[in-house]
């Protein structure tokens, strides 16, 4: 800043006012006096002039410490807006801005203050001294802030006393401003401090005052005031009582607001296109003020206080309702997730039940089968023992009888020959018979001879040498009978021993009396199982490639279930014919044995291989079906329980299930648990004993 020429002041303050020229000039003089030696004053009458003047000052590098704007200006231009606009321009930002106004809205002041576009506001009319003081303080502020180095000049232009007075005054003004601001804030805060009820009472009082006691309406309880979708043409301000706001959902009417409805009813309808969003029904007897939209507009325009109350009540009511909606939403969400959780749990439980059920069914079936077969085996033991013993005695007795007969030794020989003869295949026997018939020219004789083991004419003649022709017929008949006796005895014995074998296999297969894992011969179990397949294997070639196996600690009956499932799957896979290979081997180093069941079937598709052990056991037409995958989950369970594993290797023409078992069960291993062992010895034993005594002492 250059030192001012003595004739002119270095700074200019600008006053924008629509006052008449005389008033303007007098004001300018006053202001100029307040500016002391430093600041002169110029006046403009509108925004354009103000802008132009600022432009001129800029060009002349003349600082403008203070801009004063009168309010309102012409054409309804507001002083605050002018200040705000000037303040936007960075060049004039430092200038102190003073607003002279009669009315100032809270909102406008707040805006100006927040923007920093107002330093002082004086209420019109104001005393000359008041204005000059304010201007002096603003100038001093400006100098101190913008040109601290020039402060001594202030003393040059201001009386030091005056300066200190000015500084103090400036401080006071700042405090005033702060007070003013606090007041502004308080008018909101004061509303904020009021309780809902106080606020509502204030509001209702204001309505009563402004609208001169609008009519009260009273509704009995459970009266529908309006329905969802209705056109609503008024606002009810509830004085006493409660309403229920409901909305029609798909299946029922849902109560949305009760406590949260608030005092303003018809609010949403009035604010949004006049249709009711809720159905409103009184919950108690209800008294309300009725206000039409026109009345509302009028009241709000007339009383700024009412508008503050109303706005606040409105906001709070809406706030409460929003909060309630949010709570409802949260409740719904919580319910939904609880439901989802419950549903998941139910589904899980159901799946578990299903699995348990099918496993139980399986276990039950096996248990029944085990019991039944063990029972049958036991029942068969007695008769078969009797049959075998009887056959032995008959043979002995026959020998004794024959020994005492004439020619008995020959007959006894014949009997023994018939008993020991290896039966010929039908084809060979037929050939021999046909040849002999040709030789003897007697079909019937040939047939009878072949039956008793005479195959050639030579043998025939040798046999009957010295027997008179007339006796030969009788002799032949006798021989036939003896022969039949011999072969009959042979058949009884071989069949009885077959039955004994089946019974033994059945017993060792089912093992109803098995207690814990014992060291067993794996091959025996395999053979038992194969024997029980009997006819099922008639078109299948069975190839055994048994290695040298140690005895394996296991539950034999359970492993037999595994062999049964694997073998029957293999047979099923091969259909009409094929080769079933059973290969065993030992890995002594790792103390393991393996059993491979290999078939020549079409193989298992790869996608099925992945799932095959998980497939559920099923029954079809009430029969146990040992189809592909049937029972495999059970197989795996049993093998796993033995500490072993099952491997599957399948391609067309060769499918191999390889069961690997440890020779010894780990101590405390799972086979100690007997839940797949199908019996209850304590139940079974007394029954079995009873049967024994009934059938007497042949066992």
């Amino acid at each position: 800043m250059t030192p001012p020429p003595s004739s002119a002041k270095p700074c200019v303050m600008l006053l924008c006012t629509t006052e008449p020229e005389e008033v303007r000039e007098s004001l300018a003089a006053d202001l100029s006096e307040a500016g002391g030696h430093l600041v002169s004053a110029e006046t403009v009458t509108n925004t354009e002039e103000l802008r132009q003047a600022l432009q001129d000052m800029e060009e002349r590098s003349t600082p403008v410490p203070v801009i004063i704007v009168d309010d309102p200006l012409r054409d309804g231009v507001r002083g605050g807006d002018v200040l705000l606009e000037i303040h936007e321009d960075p060049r004039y930002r430092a200038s102190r801005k003073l607003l002279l106004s009669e009315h100032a809205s809270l909102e406008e002041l707040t805006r100006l203050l927040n923007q920093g576009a107002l330093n002082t506001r004086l209420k019109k009319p104001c005393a000359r001294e008041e204005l000059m003081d304010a201007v002096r303080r603003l100038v001093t502020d400006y100098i101190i802030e913008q040109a601290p180095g020039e402060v001594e000049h202030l003393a040059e232009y201001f009386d030091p006393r005056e300066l200190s007075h000015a500084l103090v005054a400036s401080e006071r003004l700042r405090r005033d401003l702060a007070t003013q601001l606090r007041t502004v804030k308080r008018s909101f805060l004061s509303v904020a401090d009021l309780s809902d009820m106080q606020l509502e009472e204030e509001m209702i009082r204001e309505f009563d005052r402004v609208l001169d006691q609008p009519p009260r309406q009273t509704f009995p309880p459970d009266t529908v005031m309006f329905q969802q979708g209705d056109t609503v043409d008024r606002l009810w301000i509830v004085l006493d009582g409660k309403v229920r706001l409901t909305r029609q959902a798909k299946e029922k009417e849902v109560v949305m607001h009760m406590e949260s409805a608030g005092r303003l009813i018809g609010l949403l309808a009035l604010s949004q296109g006049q249709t009711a969003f809720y159905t409103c029904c009184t919950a108690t007897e209800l008294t309300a003020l009725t206000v039409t939209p026109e009345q509302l507009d009028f009241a709000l325009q007339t009383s700024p206080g009412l508008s503050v109350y109303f706005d606040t009540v409105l906001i709070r009511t809406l706030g409460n309702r929003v909060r309630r909606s949010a709570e409802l939403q949260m409740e719904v969400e919580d319910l939904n997730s609880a439901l989802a959780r419950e549903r998941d749990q139910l589904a899980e439980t159901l799946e578990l039940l299903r699995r348990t059920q099918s496993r139980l069914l399986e276990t039950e079936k096996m248990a029944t089968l085990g019991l039944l077969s063990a029972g049958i085996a036991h029942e068969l033991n007695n008769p078969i023992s009797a049959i075998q013993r009887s056959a032995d005695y008959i043979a002995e007795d026959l020998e004794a009888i024959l020994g005492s007969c004439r020619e008995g030794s020959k007959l006894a020989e014949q009997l023994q020959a018939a008993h020991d003869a290896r039966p010929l295949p039908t084809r060979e026997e037929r050939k021999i018979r046909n040849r002999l018939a040709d030789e003897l020219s007697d079909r019937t004789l040939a047939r009878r001879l072949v039956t008793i083991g005479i195959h050639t004419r030579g043998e025939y003649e040798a046999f009957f040498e010295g027997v008179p022709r007339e006796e030969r017929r009788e002799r032949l008949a006798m021989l036939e009978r003896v022969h039949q006796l011999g072969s009959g005895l042979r058949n009884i014995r071989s069949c009885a021993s077959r039955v004994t074998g089946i019974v033994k296999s059945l017993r060792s297969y089912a093992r109803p009396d098995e207690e814990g894992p014992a060291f067993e011969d794996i091959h025996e179990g395999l053979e038992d199982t194969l024997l029980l397949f009997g006819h099922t294997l008639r078109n299948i070639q069975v190839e055994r490639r048994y290695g040298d196996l140690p005895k394996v600690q296991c539950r034999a009956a359970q492993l037999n279930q595994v062999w049964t499932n694997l073998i029957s799957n293999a047979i099923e896979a091969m259909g009409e014919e094929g080769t079933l290979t059973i290969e065993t081997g030992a890995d002594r180093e790792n103390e393991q044995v393996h059993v491979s069941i290999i078939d020549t079937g079409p193989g298992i598709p790869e996608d099925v291989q992945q799932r095959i052990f998980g497939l559920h056991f099923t029954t079809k037409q009430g029969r146990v079906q040992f189809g592909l995958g049937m029972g495999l989950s059970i197989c795996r369970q049993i093998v796993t329980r033995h500490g072993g594993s099952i491997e599957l290797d399948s391609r067309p023409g060769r499918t191999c299930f390889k069961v690997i078992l440890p020779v010894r069960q780990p101590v405390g291993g799972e086979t100690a648990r007997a839940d797949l062992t199908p019996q209850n010895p304590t139940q079974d034993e007394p029954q079995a004993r009873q049967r024994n005594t009934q059938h007497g002492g042949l066992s």
Partner: protein
Amino acid sequence: MNQVLVLCIEDEQEVRDAILRDLEPFAEHFQVEAAETADAAREVLQEALARKDKLGLVLCDHLLPGQSGVDFLVELKKDERTAVARKVLITGQASLEDTVKAVNEAGLDSYIAKPWKREELQEIVVKQLTEFVLGNVEELLPYVSVLDGPRLLEEVGRRKADK
């Protein structure tokens, strides 16, 4: 003279022996042959047909190695040389499905369940063979002693009257 063939198909030797012994009373008048399998039976049949013998009765087990009994009976039914033969299933293991097939497609005449009784089997054989000879044999008198004599004699009388 052409003979009537009685064919028994059973794969188990002991069972076959038992059936054959039960068939012993018929051996004098019929050619009784046995076979273990359908294949072996076919061989017997070829020989018999070559000798101009007629197949009169088949007693057949169902579960056999190779072709099943029912399938073999169906095959016999389709061959005109053997279609008229009486067909009997003697088995313990034929399912309902198999049996229905035997009745519908092979014209099964009788079913003997194992284990069987001698009288039962012989009764069935008499009945079936009587039916066969009545329909397929001219000279009935030789069979009077071993089959259903009164029926055969009745027929003999009727035939004489017809002449």
